[in-house]
């Protein structure tokens, strides 16, 4: 805490804070909890729309999907703890985001985990990668929530600081949402779930509010330990309490623990809370007041309950074998008052802790222009060699090794899960509807141009949702950046926000919330500016969900969109030219919107047998993936210069297969929306033939695609 921040506390209290109060302020006013560097920029994001039921500022965003149902979703970072202790760091990230969803009154129905690591040729990166994946699986697989997606990328800039984001999607009835508010003087605060210990005192809030330097392993005790079994009981008990209408309010305990949960719920309701710290069930004896107030022990929820319903609440908890203790009550004075051993140990205004944290307009300074790109036509390798290099690049190659460690089918709703799909499709039991969910980000584009990088991330997320036939509804995000006190990083952040805003406005997909993760750097070297977008879309009929893979032979194959020679930040440039240079592909938001409209309409009319987003790696990769996943060959003739046709990453494109009887209607639809549709070939045959360039067998393509990551992990 800075001197000015300390003086602000003294001004508010009219006196010096005691040690306990100071601890409460320092966690609540940390970068992680207060968003002090990002707030001024976040305010410029579009957050409203008829579909938005709850926007930023609550535990999670909520959108209306019709029929009285609502989708609740949120993304968060757990990069800092994962860099120190990958298994537990990632596991507790999953636990935290799931509780955010429950606290809105929703059942968690899907998890996605966008991850970034350094190259797998390095042993420490392999350790981090393996640990994070095992932690996500170890926790997610035990709580009965399917893990259905999340993209994975590798870049040297993420070697010291891996990026571990977690996203959860939940389902609630629109009128059954539970407010995260401590309303009603005299109501009781019930702490449910795990006991409170010393683990993770100031964990996330402290770790995520400064850079990790050498010897960061000393911070291990700050990383919390997850108990997924207790989380599962919490899920079931909370959902039963909600269903029975027994709760006034509900909030999870995450960063800044009890201090955050109590002050935020009170501040939202304009009330205060009086907490008896002696009533908090402890894991060990002798915890001090500030430790109980700031502990980030996992698997805890704070319920606000009326005295008449307390008995019923405690019964539900008992039936599930869950601890539950009354630790205080709602009061009218607007203060968070904490007592221990019969004495008042802290009295601070709830609003001051939760809402009146500092806010900075930090200086911005543009980063230097990136180096100029090499002209790819000077290339000496053959197209065929380049193809196998790109297909076997870790960013492109199959992530089977990862997604097979995740239970993607529990809950019986996964129409399309991990692997071979652009977006996961989860049907909503009984209604016939489904939600499509995708997470996207492109580190290289962001490194070259943070504005375009962010806009591309939104566009790709929208496209990934739309290729399934779904209508993109809204986004959440996790904004991963370096140290905000450096003007270059803050400029990257501001540019990213500008890109996010423009794209979200163009696609009418408002921002419903998210998370900012700063200080992802060590030794002055920051991660690439990495805004990760989590997009949710709606499919009216899950049986109309369009697969990404070619389903059969004899289909007409179309390439939608325009292809220009655009190699800046491409996978081809990275692995063949070995550079991240130049400018990323241009993005025309109007053209992208037209493509999104074509995809949704065509899916709704049943005109598409398959549709696959064309992005990283270019058309060659898109077509090959559709063949491998469908186990079907293809013969295509791509127009124009073959290098560009195969590997350029021009935006707003998709590869679609269409049954012969539907081609006229499909072409007419594309024409109506002004989307160029090139009929490039047919599915069928033994291999993948790029006429005018080269051909490969599906088997050899599959081998390269499937073995790249296992081979790297074998060392």
């Amino acid at each position, binding site marked *: 805490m800075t001197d000015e921040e300390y003086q602000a506390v003294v001004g508010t209290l009219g006196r010096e804070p005691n040690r306990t109060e100071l601890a409460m302020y320092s966690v609540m006013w940390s970068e992680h909890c207060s968003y002090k560097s990002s707030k001024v920029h976040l305010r410029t994001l579009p957050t409203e729309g008829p579909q938005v039921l709850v926007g930023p500022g609550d535990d999670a965003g909520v959108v209306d999907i019709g029929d009285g149902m609502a989708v609740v979703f949120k993304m968060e970072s757990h990069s800092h703890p994962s860099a120190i202790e990958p298994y537990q760091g990632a596991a507790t990230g999953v636990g935290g985001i799931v509780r955010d969803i429950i606290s809105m009154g929703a059942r968690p129905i899907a998890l996605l985990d966008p991850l970034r690591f350094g190259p797998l040729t390095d042993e420490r990166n392999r350790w981090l990668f393996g640990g994070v994946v095992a932690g996500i699986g170890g926790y997610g697989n035990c709580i*009965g929530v399917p893990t259905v997606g999340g993209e994975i990328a590798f870049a040297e800039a993420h070697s010291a600081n891996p990026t571990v984001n977690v996203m959860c999607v939940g389902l609630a009835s629109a009128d059954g949402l539970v407010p995260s508010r401590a309303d009603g003087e005299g109501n009781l605060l019930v702490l449910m779930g795990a006991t409170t210990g010393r683990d993770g005192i100031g964990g996330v809030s402290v770790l995520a509010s400064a850079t990790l330097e050498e010897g960061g392993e000393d911070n291990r005790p700050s990383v919390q330990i997850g108990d997924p079994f207790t989380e599962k009981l919490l899920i079931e008990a909370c959902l039963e309490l909600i269903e029975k209408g027994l709760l006034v309010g509900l909030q999870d305990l995450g960063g800044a623990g009890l201090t955050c949960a109590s002050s935020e719920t009170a501040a939202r309701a304009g009330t205060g809370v009086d907490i008896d710290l002696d009533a908090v069930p402890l894991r060990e004896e002798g915890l001090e007041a500030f430790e109980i107030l700031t502990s980030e022990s996992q698997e805890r929820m704070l319920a606000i309950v009326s005295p008449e319903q307390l008995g019923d609440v405690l019964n539900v908890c008992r039936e599930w074998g869950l601890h539950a203790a009354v630790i205080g009550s709602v009061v009218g004075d607007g203060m968070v008052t904490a007592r221990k051993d019969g004495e008042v140990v802290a009295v601070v205004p709830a609003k001051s802790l939760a809402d009146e944290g500092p806010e900075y307009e930090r200086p911005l300074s543009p980063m230097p222009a990136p180096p100029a790109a090499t002209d790819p036509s000077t290339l000496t390798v053959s197209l065929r060699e380049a193809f196998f290099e790109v297909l076997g690049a870790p960013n492109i190659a199959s992530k089977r090794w990862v997604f097979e460690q995740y239970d993607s089918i*529990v809950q019986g709703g996964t*129409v399309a899960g991990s692997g071979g799909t652009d977006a996961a499709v989860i049907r909503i039991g009984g209604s016939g509807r489904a939600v499509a969910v995708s997470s996207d980000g492109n580190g290289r584009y962001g490194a070259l141009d943070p504005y375009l990088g962010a806009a591309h991330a939104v566009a790709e997320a929208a496209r990934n949702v739309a290729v399934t036939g779904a209508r993109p509804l809204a986004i959440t995000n996790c904004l991963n950046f370096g140290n905000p006190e450096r003007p270059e990083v803050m400029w990257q952040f501001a540019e990213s926000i500008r890109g996010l805003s423009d794209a979200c406005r163009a696609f009418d997909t408002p921002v419903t919330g998210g998370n900012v993760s700063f200080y992802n750097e060590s030794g002055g070297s920051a991660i690439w500016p990495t805004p990760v977008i989590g997009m949710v879309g709606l499919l009216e009929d899950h*049986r109309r969900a369009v697969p990404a893979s070619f389903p059969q032979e004899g289909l007409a194959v179309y390439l939608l969109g325009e292809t220009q020679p655009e190699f800046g930040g491409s996978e081809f440039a990275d692995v063949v030219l070995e550079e991240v240079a130049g400018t990323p592909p241009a993005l025309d938001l109007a053209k992208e919107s037209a493509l999104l409209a074509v995809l949704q309409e065509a899916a709704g009319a049943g005109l598409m047998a398959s549709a696959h987003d064309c992005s990283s790696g270019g058309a060659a990769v898109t077509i090959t993936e559709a063949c491998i996943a469908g186990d079907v060959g293809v013969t295509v003739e791509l127009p124009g210069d073959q290098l560009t046709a195969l590997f350029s990453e021009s935006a707003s494109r998709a590869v679609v297969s269409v049954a012969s009887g539907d081609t006229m209607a499909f072409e007419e639809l594309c024409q109506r929306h002004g989307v160029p549709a090139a009929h490039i070939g047919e599915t069928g045959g033994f291999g993948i033939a790029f006429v005018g360039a080269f051909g490969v067998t599906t088997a050899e393509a599959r081998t390269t695609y499937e073995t790249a990551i296992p081979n790297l992990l074998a060392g």
Partner: protein
Amino acid sequence: MTKVGVVTFPGSLDDGDAREAIRFLGGEPVRLWHKDADLQDVDAVILPGGFSFGDYLRTGAIARFSPVMQGIRRFAEAGGPVVGICNGFQILCESHLLPGALIRNRSLRFVCRWVDIRVESPVSPLTAGVKTGTVLRVPVKHGEGQFVASVEDLARIEGAELVAFRYCAPDGSVDEVANPNGSAGSIAGIRNERGNVVGLMPHPEHAVDPDLGPVGGEPLLVSLLEHCMARAGS
């Protein structure tokens, strides 16, 4: 209508999916709570997948002491059909209702994957209505699914034809490539000698709805329902 009880332990995960599958196939699912020894006159019992009681000591080790397991033991002794899926299979082994045990996958990693299994014996409620040798596509998802048993037990299991399912290639041939967890003899599921208790690691309840993927679990659960009806009729 055939009533199939599905047990919910704290930490059960696929209990809802098992109930849904039974309903989808025309049976009547009944939720059985782990604290109740009374099985509510069900015709069959399914112990579903999950991590009962967190499985922190050993998979299935605590669940077997639940009151409901006393009821299930009596039910099984009376010849009632009992099916253990994944964690349910682990619980049946821990309860000594089936021989052997399930340990960590040979890869030491959790595996969620669609596999093929071959029906090896018609003597079980899941396979009575399925031709031996039939190959079915079903998913597995487990971290501890490697079936092991002592040399004597394995000999007895094989000798008495207690193997109900083996992992196999799509053409039905059994080889190590098709074995997702390193199980002895590629064993995916076994039955007891009487033939009324059967356990398997794959999840038939996740393979009945064509909207979600292959339907290799359908014939197995249909067999269970028909077997119950035949028992009720006799």
